């Protein structure tokens, strides 16, 4: 029983750190601010979540202590990180950071232009 739980905990923590590494590689490798934000806000979230889950299971199964603060941490990261990603993305768009040149479509720009024409 202890062996199986050690295996699961180790797997979760390894998976979490691997995902964080991949998020870092994505931030270095991808071409523009928006696609980098995709990598950072998704992979880093699940990485942190699985590391915290591994920690919680370690204390629960091996030390027999249920640490509720870790669970609350999981919930907070789960709720806040997509919103942080959205806000960074929106701020970048509003100060005019250009899209990557291979981008094919920009409906938001069209909508903004249409609105300006309507106002005049």
């Amino acid at each position, binding site marked *: 029983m202890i062996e199986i739980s050690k295996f699961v905990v180790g797997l979760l923590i390894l998976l979490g750190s691997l*995902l964080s590494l991949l998020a870092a590689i994505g931030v270095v*490798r991808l071409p523009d601010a928006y*696609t980098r934000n995709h990598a950072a806000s998704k992979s880093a979230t699940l990485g942190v979540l699985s590391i915290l889950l591994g920690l919680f299971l370690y204390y629960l199964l091996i030390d027999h202590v249920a640490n509720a603060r870790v669970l609350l941490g999981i919930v907070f990261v789960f709720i806040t990180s997509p919103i942080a990603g959205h806000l960074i993305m*929106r701020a970048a768009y509003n100060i005019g950071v250009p899209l990557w040149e291979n981008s094919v*479509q920009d409906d938001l*720009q069209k909508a903004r232009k249409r609105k300006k024409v309507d106002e005049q």
Partner: protein
Amino acid sequence: MAFQLLLNFFLAYIWMFLSNDYSSLAFFKGYFFGALILFFLRRFFKQRFYLLNVMAVIKLFFLFCSELVKANIGVVKVVLSPKLSMQPAIFALETDLEKDWEITLLSNLITLTPGTLVIEVSEDNKTLYIHAMDIDDVEQAKLDIKNSFEKAIKEVSR
């Protein structure tokens, strides 16, 4: 929904007082019988039986988790592919959700779906502008996913 939940708690306390037993087991027994009573009296409430809403919330939670895992697999595939051959784009999506919390929940779900991130919600709350990592193979599939999300959220707030 909140009213029915409160009523169910109230019935559980009445059960505890009637049986003069103040343990948590008595509370759960009372809660169970209270839920039965509310189920049989469901036609007197304006909204439907509230445990159905609770089921919908649980379903939405599992949808959230599975989408999170899928999103990460998608991002890892893009990051580790030898050539950067994706085509990013910003597209508009019409939504028929109306309340603020529903739109917040929908955009959170979209942000966690494979390869999409919400950039802006228009001022009249009717259009979401979404940045997609790879437009050509997923646009149709994404619309399907979004229909399923919207349906799940509507199921919660019904």
